[in-house]
């Protein structure tokens, strides 16, 4: 505690108890403190002593803090009180448990695009609210945006309390040099649009991991903000969508009139194509079921290991080799079969449960990518490294290979290779056996511990996950789900179907309607479910391809000659997709009509005809899609060659 802190503590005695310094800025020092009466942690910002003695600075500080204290918004750090005691001026605000955006970028580098987008959107919400109240932030920087640890939400702090600086022409300017809009540097008073410029700088830094301009002195920095064009963000921010990059770059325009009109306009630009999908609870439980199956294997492994070990031991001690070999094999098989059988039963019951809530294999397929994305994000947040799992896995595989080799290769050739003298066989055999049994025990323990290690989930992007995904995409999985649902009444899925995509929703709706219409009508119409199925799969594939094309476009340099070609292909695909979905929709509508009016209409036949032509077309297009995939692959490979960011030229 330095003397200033002691002085402050003396003044606050009985009301707040200072703990330590959190940081200092241009205007003052921030302390972590406790409010004694309410027993809660707070942050106290104290105006620098040299500023506090200047009545004009002091008045401004107090007044602006009071204005900001009136703001009430989920993304603004609330100010509890503004007080003056003797020579001290300070305000008390809520403590946000987390770090500033700047700290996060310094710690982890550039933010992933979705996180950066969230921070930008939330900050824009907060700014929009403040602007509606006529309050301009004036000092929006990376250090004034706090990211709460447990919720990940962004909170904006320090409204209207910018530090004072001298501008180029000697006039005082409030704010931080790297975040000042060109017009503010020229001396125009800050307004909502200059806040948007600062938000653009924040967005750039978050996405690129570095600010748009860097310079040794603040004068040079200001000059760059005034004169130099912003480096292309797309070449720094990998994986960010074009929409996001455009929105940030739009905020960074030199002329305020070119920027978004207000935060609402910016938010409209940011409006995301796909909201984060909430996976329904039964599905979520289903995805995490692995943790519940693990104990079965964990328990079975040592039993298996010990039992087999004892029997191998007996094999070499006694003379009943033939009998014991059979016994050994049966033991291993039964002891493996029991947990596997339990596991399968468990899986079946889980699938039935899923079915009871109205979810089928299509839902598993549709929700899988969302689940995977969620897991990847969670892993990143927790900073989990699946290292110990890796090591265990490798050791286990090595152990298994050693055992196999010894049994298959060394053992039959023992006499020939190792023991030329027949009399020495016993000793060598014993040595080999004890070595083998040790390796065997270790291998099985590795498997057991691998199952047991808590928090060790298989990597969401690893080979196992890929295998799983391929399994659930396969026809086999569909059959299994149908089998497990034997004798069960399928119920309608509830409201929680948001993970489904449009094609799937339509396909399922047509299936349901199909089951409801009378038999003779069904006979007359032919195999509609197969038709819808093809259309549905086709639409899904078209969408996936179009999405991947869009991603590739965003990753490429805006001037790349490939872009128009990719865009043309994408437009075609999107057109086809829309056509397919519309066909599905019309099919459903006609079936609905048929069900309501109980009569067969010519429209339906016509729609069916259309759908059938579309189906043949889709089937034909599959070959073309392979070409597109090849093209995508090529583009991606080209892109992977390191893109060196163009060196920023020195200011003119």
């Amino acid at each position: 505690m330095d003397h200033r802190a002691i002085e402050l503590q003396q003044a606050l005695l009985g009301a707040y108890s200072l703990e330590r310094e959190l940081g200092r800025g241009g205007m003052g020092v921030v302390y972590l403190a406790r409010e004694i009466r309410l027993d809660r942690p707070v942050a106290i910002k104290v105006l620098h002593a040299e500023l506090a003695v200047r009545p004009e600075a002091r008045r401004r500080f107090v007044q602006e803090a009071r204005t900001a204290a009136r703001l009430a918004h989920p993304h603004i750090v609330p100010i509890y009180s503004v007080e003056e005691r003797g020579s001290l001026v300070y305000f008390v605000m809520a403590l946000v448990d987390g770090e500033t955006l700047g700290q996060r970028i310094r710690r982890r580098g550039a933010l992933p695009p979705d996180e950066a987008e969230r921070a930008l959107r939330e900050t824009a919400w907060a700014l929009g609210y403040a602007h509606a109240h006529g309050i301009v932030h004036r000092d929006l920087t990376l250090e004034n945006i706090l990211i709460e640890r447990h919720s990940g939400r962004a909170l904006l702090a320090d409204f209207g309390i910018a530090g004072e600086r001298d501008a180029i022409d000697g006039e005082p300017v409030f704010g931080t040099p790297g975040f000042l809009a060109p017009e503010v540097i020229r001396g125009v008073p800050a307004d909502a649009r200059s806040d948007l410029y600062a938000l653009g700088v924040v967005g750039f830094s978050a996405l690129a991991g570095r600010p748009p301009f860097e310079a040794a002195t603040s004068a040079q920095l200001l000059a760059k903000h005034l004169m130099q064009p912003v480096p292309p963000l797309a070449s720094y921010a990998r994986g960010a969508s074009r929409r996001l990059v455009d929105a940030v770059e739009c905020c960074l325009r030199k002329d305020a009139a070119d920027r978004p009109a207000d935060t609402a306009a910016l938010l409209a630009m940011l409006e995301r194509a796909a909201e984060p999908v909430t996976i329904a609870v039964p599905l979520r439980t289903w995805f995490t079921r692995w943790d519940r199956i693990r104990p079965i294997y964990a328990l079975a492994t040592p039993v298996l290991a010990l039992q087999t070990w004892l029997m191998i031991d007996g094999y070499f001690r006694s003379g009943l080799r033939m009998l014991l070999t059979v016994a050994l094999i049966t033991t291993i098989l039964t002891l493996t079969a029991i947990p596997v059988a339990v596991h399968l039963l468990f899986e079946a019951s889980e699938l039935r449960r899923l079915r009871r809530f109205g979810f089928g294999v299509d839902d598993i397929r549709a929700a899988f990518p969302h689940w995977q994305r969620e897991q990847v994000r969670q892993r990143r947040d927790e900073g989990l490294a699946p290292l110990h799992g890796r090591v265990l896995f490798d050791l286990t595989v090595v152990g298994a290979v050693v055992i196999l080799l010894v049994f298959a290769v060394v053992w039959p050739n023992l006499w020939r290779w190792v023991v030329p003298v027949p009399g020495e066989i016993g000793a060598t055999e014993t040595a080999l056996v004890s070595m083998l049994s040790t390796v065997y025990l270790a291998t099985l323990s590795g498997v057991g511990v691998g199952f047991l290690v808590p928090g060790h989930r298989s990597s969401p992007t690893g080979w196992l996950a890929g295998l799983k995904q391929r399994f659930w995409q396969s026809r086999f999985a569909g059959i299994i789900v149908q089998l497990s649902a034997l004798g069960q009444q399928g119920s309608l899925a509830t409201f929680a179907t948001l993970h489904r995509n449009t094609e799937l929703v339509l396909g399922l709706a047509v299936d349901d309607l199909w089951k409801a219409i009378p038999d003779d009508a069904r006979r007359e119409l032919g195999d509609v479910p197969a038709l819808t199925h093809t259309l549905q799969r086709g639409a899904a594939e078209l969408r996936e391809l179009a999405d991947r094309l869009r991603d590739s476009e965003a990753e490429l340099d805006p001037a790349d000659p490939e872009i128009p070609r990719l865009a043309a292909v994408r437009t075609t695909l999107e057109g086809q997709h829309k056509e397919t979905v519309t066909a599905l929709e019309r099919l459903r509508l006609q079936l609905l009509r048929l069900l309501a009016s109980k009569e067969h209409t010519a429209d339906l036949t016509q729609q069916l005809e259309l759908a059938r032509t579309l189906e043949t077309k889709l089937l034909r297009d599959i070959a073309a899609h392979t070409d597109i995939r090849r093209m995508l692959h090529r583009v991606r490979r080209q892109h992977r060659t390191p893109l060196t960011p163009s060196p920023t030229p020195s200011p003119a």
Partner: protein
Amino acid sequence: MTGKDELDFAGLQDALAGVYSLESRLGQGGMGVVYLGRDVALDRPVAIKVLRPELAARPDQRERFLAEARTGARLSHPLIVPIFAVAEAAGWVYFVMGVVAGESLGERVRRAGPVPTSEGERILREVGWALAYAHAMGILHRDVTLDNILIERSTARAMLVDFGIAAEIDRAGEASLVGTPAYLAPELIHGDPPSVQSDVYALGITAWAMLAGRLPFVGDDAAAVLLQQVQAPVPSLASAAPGASPRLVAAIERCLAKDPTARHDTVEAFIATLERPGTVTALAPPLHRWVTRWERIRPAWAFAMPMIAMLSVESFVALLDRLTTGVMGYRFPMPFPGDPGLMMGILRPVVLIPAAALLLQGMLEVRELRRVVRSGYGIEDLRVALRRHTLEAPGEAPGLLGRVIHDVSWLTVIGMIVLAYVALHIRWFVGGSNDEYFAFAQVILDMMRWGWVILWTAFGASFVMRVSPIRLHHGKGLGTRFWNSRLGSWLARLAGFGLGRNEAPAHTLHRPTELVLDLAIDDLWGALPDTMRRGLLELPAVADSLRQRVGELKELTRQLEAPALADVPEAAALRARLAIRQEAGITALERLRLQLAGLSGEAVPTGALTEQLRDARALEGELLTELAGHPSLKRLLKRKSTPRSPTPTPLLT
């Protein structure tokens, strides 16, 4: 869906084909029907609200609907359901908004009764935030009701919906009135234009209904309700929602004043009167890791259990044999007949393996402890973390598998006792030759062998599943008591051996104020020169006991805040008194720290410090007597345990 609905659905879908694809019907309001649909181009779920066809036919209604939806579309706030598009197509008038996966507050109250106070306050704050934003944008909601607040399931946040799109109330022969009768402010009924104050009134009614589980004014028809809005005084919220704090009740009742000028000026003013959200602070990562360390230690045990079972089964049989020989004069077939080291054979696996597992656990514990100490935390932090952890995560109910394991292990124990009884009295059950005994005994022996394996495996499983077959409540009472004991602090100190003094840990928000002060005092005292320290030998001890007294006071206050004691005036008085004592204790600690801090800067003579120290010691003694001899306190706390009969919750009509 009725036939007409189906036709509506098909007609609308026809009009929207290719742009939106309807999925199902979500609900119906005064102005129209809401469908769950999908935006085909963006592939995202949307909610589509369609103006009822009979209203769409009236140009004035149609215009109003469109204008107001456009107004709402200007709003962008995290707690307002966004409106994506407003459009007309083939005679249908509709707007498209975001989907909130959850239920409306009205549904929630109808389903689960009144909302608990703390959650209610949070919901009010969130709705207030959204309303305040809209008001700042110059937009009035005009229809704040329970049904226009949606609670998102995944995040529990409250989102406001349907800005300005209130239905018109039919009042024969009078000027038209827009809104929901049960939420209409009196001045609106008199014909005044809607204002911020009328939204505040509606928010007040919403708050009242949410906390009480029913609406304040109910009547047979709209006219009766409106009459009550104008004339009848608001029923007492304090009696309708007993759990609500007087502060909250006063804030809500002020919203419900008949005179608009008597209400809160703005929604912000209303939010400000609600208590601020208690900051949620997560435990620091090293501490969190330590609290959940059992997760990492468990596998060692789970793995050891089946091993014990497997390795000890033959020894167990041998033991049985030794026991039965004397009783029956009969020998079981033994794997190692006449083994002299029999007892050792039994003891070895049964003792050695748990010992090994214990050793492993000890090593793991020490490793985790060292990690904690290395990041700068001490035993006090561990205690706080442990306490918070047990408070926050009360024991989970065991799942189905857990219960199965529990039952299996008990059944096995019982079965084995029965078998042992049968084995000991074998002559009662089987007559005849020795061969028959032999065969019978063999069967029993095999069964017991399997029982033994099952039992240990079940023990192992119980460690994995975290259910105790013998209901020891391990890891809760015992563990907490261990870490609170002196042994625990020794262990922690031992674990820190050779790690050296660490600088302050980065994350200390979990520490209560008095602990922060006490630790700071310890640090400052440790930094003093030896000569000065000798004069102040008892200071750390005094600070420590003062800190403990304050902690106990806090714990008592917490107990006194139990809902059962909420409306006992005696408890309130006692709470106030304890709060004052608590503050005095913290201030004394604070003074000690200040003096010490001054001392290390060598600015203050020791005389003032000794004085402070004397005061602190006196205060500590006072607190101690207060804590020990508070008869009314004990009486109150005893009363807390007698449950109050819950009041029946009337449903919303």
